[in-house]
């Protein structure tokens, strides 16, 4: 991890140097304009508890564990207990929030786009940054020992998707296949939704499926959680990059609470011990304010392929 941090730092310096050296009409890099969380914050009347949920993009048990430091952190700034609520599927988070059972939830880009369609009051709050980027690519992986080198090699073999609301684990993988004239419904002998990225990787590792679509963070997550070497897998294709997951708050949450939560998220950094304690389990570098524009492409791809399932 320490080495990764150094690399991220070097990269950040490089990006800054790059920006400094290129044409002068470039915008300066975005900065966190938000002030730190208010230390004198007191919860408004009626706000007694914050419920937190997330799309089950990794193993749900492990995910709940990794969310605990975040829950404690938020609780410290909000002065109310923070409870983690488990969601059954990607779409379930949106449903829970719409019903008011969950106040704060994390979404994949696609599940956010779809939840927002159903619940326009949903408020996007902060974006994940990981691997030094607010975007990530999806990988199509096979087992290293398998003979498959390309998507085309997978004709007649089995394939695992994550969830119909997963961006890299489903939508962008389908878009990639369609761009190569591969219809996932007929090309493969069998497809299945495994529920999360780790489960998909595990299925490939176990030989239950020949290939899977995952997000790039699943490989280190599987290594962390199960000790499976990422080099057990071979990447044979990559999807276009999508925005990272994001946190949203439900409509109706007091405005000062929303502001305090956002400030608390944006204050998180791996440069502090507390930040590392919260962020490391999530394999996240930090958070940034949501750029709604970044989801335009996801909406377009969703509109293009959602009806072709």
């Amino acid at each position: 991890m320490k080495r990764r941090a150094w690399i991220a730092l070097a990269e950040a310096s490089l990006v800054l140097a790059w920006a400094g050296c290129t044409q002068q009409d470039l915008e300066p890099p975005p900065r966190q304009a938000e002030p730190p969380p208010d230390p004198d914050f007191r919860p408004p009347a009626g706000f007694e508890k914050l419920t937190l949920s997330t799309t089950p993009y990794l193993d749900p048990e492990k995910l709940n564990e990794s969310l605990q430091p975040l829950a404690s952190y938020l609780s410290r700034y909000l002065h109310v207990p923070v409870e983690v609520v488990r969601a059954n599927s990607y779409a379930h988070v949106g449903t829970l929030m719409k019903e008011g059972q969950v106040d704060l939830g994390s979404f994949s880009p696609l599940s956010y786009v779809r939840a927002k369609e159903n619940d326009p009051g949903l408020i996007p709050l902060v974006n994940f940054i990981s691997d030094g980027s607010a975007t990530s690519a999806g990988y199509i992986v096979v087992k290293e020992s398998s003979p498959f080198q390309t998507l085309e090699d997978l004709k007649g073999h089995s394939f695992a998707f994550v969830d119909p609301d997963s961006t890299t684990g489903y939508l962008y993988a389908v878009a990639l296949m369609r761009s190569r004239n591969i219809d996932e419904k007929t090309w493969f002998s069998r497809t299945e939704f495994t529920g999360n990225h780790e489960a998909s990787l595990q299925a490939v590792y176990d030989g239950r499926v020949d290939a899977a679509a995952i997000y790039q963070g699943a490989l280190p997550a599987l290594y962390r959680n199960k000790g499976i070497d990422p080099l057990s897998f071979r990447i044979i294709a990559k999807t276009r990059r999508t925005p990272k997951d994001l946190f949203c708050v439900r409509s109706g949450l007091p405005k000062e609470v929303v502001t305090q939560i956002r400030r608390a998220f944006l204050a998180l950094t791996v440069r502090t011990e507390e930040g590392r304690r919260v962020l490391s389990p999530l394999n996240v570098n930090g958070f940034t304010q949501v750029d709604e524009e970044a989801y335009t492409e996801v909406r377009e791809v969703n509109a293009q392929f959602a009806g072709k399932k």
Partner: protein
Amino acid sequence: MGIRGKLALLVPGLVALTVTGVALGVTEAQRREQTREMRQRHEQLLEAVGVTAAAYVAQNDMAGLDALVANVSQQRLDPDLVELVVVNQDGRIIAHTDPTRFNERVDDAFTRRALTSVDPVSERSGDQLRIGVPANAGVRWATVTATYSLQRLNASIARSRGIWLLGAALLGLVICALLFSGLYRVVIRPVRTLTRVARRMGEGVLDERVPPLGAGELGELGETFNKMAAALKAQRENLEHAVAERTRELSEANQRLEKLAVTDGLTGVFNHRRFQEALAQEVLRASRTQRRFSVMMVDVDHFKRFNDTFGHPAGDELLRRLARTLEQELRATDLIARYGGEEFAVVLPDTDKDVALAAAERLRAAVEADLNVPGAEHKVTISVGLATYSADGDTPQAILIAADRALYAAKHSGRNRVVTAASALEQVG
């Protein structure tokens, strides 16, 4: 086209060509320099990217490598970057601005060169610049190639070229104006002055002179013009003088010839031909004016005998002396001619019979008195026949016949006398 027109075309043409050439040369040099700077700058940045990429590849951190490529590829960081590619040493794409191109094999000449070169390589084709650098982290892990668009640079060069050309055009105008005004003073105006003077010389005006045109060839030419004009003028004056002299000489010769043609060689009075002309003219004049004139025929009496006695030279001398007497005794307006032999004829204009008769008598007496030596054996006398227009004839022939008849009558009646035509008729009658 005049020299001014030619210079008006030539000078701006040459100036425009020169300044345009300079402007294009400067902007081309600018383009090369800026492209070179851009290439160097991007090579250095890509080498830094290569170091970071190598670290990710070394750790097999595909997500980190992808994030690096995605971050560096951001349009706002470098609007000229078209694509950034990390290629492994087998020539396969392991990271790309477009992640879906992962695992593609790249086999173009440039990438092959980049894969084997230990130094940065670059290639410019059309509107694009490609740069390839090794991704080194102790050992070579991969190769980074990037494609940059030169459109912004070219647009900037085009703007710069436009400004240069505009500046060059303005400078050209100023140079043209200065050159043209200089040429006008140094060449055109002197040449026009020379042309004007030459034209005046051509028209025959040799007094016109070229004003001083300063030192140099044109000044020398002006002086030469002036010397030429002076020489031509002197030559012409000499020629005119010679022509006048020749004309005068010719005129005198003509006068002499004319005189010879109408003068009697012996006596110096008019000859027979001139007398005939004068008589005819006088008849015409008299018939027009209704005025009278008379004709006198004078003959030396016994001239043959005089000749025989004293010799022909004495006879000739006698005739000359008689002619002098005639000239002395008669009026300047009377025309005296030797009619032939010892016979003289005289036309007396505006003279009637009586006046003519008196003149003839005076003449006869003068001859008798002047031409004789007192006591000489041979006496010189004259007989005169006189006729008057139009009483005695109204044509030259008629008058001559009448005068001749009167002379005959004078001879016949004893010589040394004057007989009028009318009295001659009476004598005959």
